[in-house]
């Protein structure tokens, strides 16, 4: 993968989003394919659901390590694991 150049202007937004998206999937400590990365004027917003709070923290830590100048907002939730309260009947 082409690395982030770390210049003051940085890469175009689309390349940056692609790099973050791939890093989230390909970094062995993350391996998440279901996180959406949105670039806003205020910085990055990450959306998605993960299986533990540890994984959410790890995602934010790795993104901050790799892109230290970018403000990151997390909208990542931890999926609930309660038993269902409804069943679906199919004829």
């Amino acid at each position, binding site marked *: 993968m082409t690395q982030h150049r770390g210049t003051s202007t940085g890469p175009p937004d689309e390349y940056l989003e692609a790099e973050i998206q791939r890093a989230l999937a390909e970094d062995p400590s993350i391996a998440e394919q279901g996180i959406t990365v949105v670039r806003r004027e205020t910085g990055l917003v990450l959306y998605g659901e993960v299986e*533990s709070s540890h994984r959410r923290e790890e995602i934010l830590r790795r993104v901050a390590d790799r892109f230290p100048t970018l403000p990151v907002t997390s909208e990542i939730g931890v999926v609930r694991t309660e038993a269902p309260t409804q069943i679906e*009947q199919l004829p």
Partner: protein
Amino acid sequence: MVIRIAAVGDVHLDEDVVGRFRPALEELSDCADVLLLAGDLTRHGTEAEARCVAQEFGGLDVPVITVLGNHDHQCNQVPQVVKVLEDVGITVLEGNGVVLECTGGRLGVAGVKGFGGGFAGRCASDFGEPEMKAFVHTTTESADRLAEALLSLDCDLLVALTHYAPVPDTLAGEPLEIYPFLGAYQLGQAIDSAPTALAVHGHAHRGSSRGTTPGGVRVRNVAHPVIKQAYSVFHLGDHLDQGEVSRLSASGT
């Protein structure tokens, strides 16, 4: 006749998740005859992660049947992963099926991981570079194995279990651009080639829960981030005469 099926996919187990599903799983036999796991049981497909899956989903009081997902292939340890799961009694399907004797009748489940390729009119073709041909061949071979497995089962109720999606309906919510990486119409075609009652898949974390094949088979995306609970439960049987529209019931009876 009522057969009760619980299902979830994309649980992505590792040490940090062990124990989260177990309280809900302990109640499983109250509402289901079987638990189907729709692949992506692990994060990277390591033997160690498979042991976490075995700990969480092994030793339940209902049979557990699974297919593997793309994450379960990441570290090229599929034989080790399968062995760990089978050692705790989990049935791992890939191009084959199993018939269970349930109180409501014989439930047949046929499964494959499946693959991508896209959907009718917007799909990859078996043409051009060897890499593209290999991609499409992987899809068609998987779909052919699913059709063969479905047609081989002698049962009262037939269910198809895949990781990749057989229809685009249950991908609603995912970016359109990645649909070809999430499923393939050939899987739907295989499901429609047999008297399938229900198709269950995962993989599409941002998708939606309900869809139908062109042949009218109900499809459910049970990826954990979609269902947002430990598992979904479906009751299937011919005692119901409410027509062709599925509905939700407030009770487990």
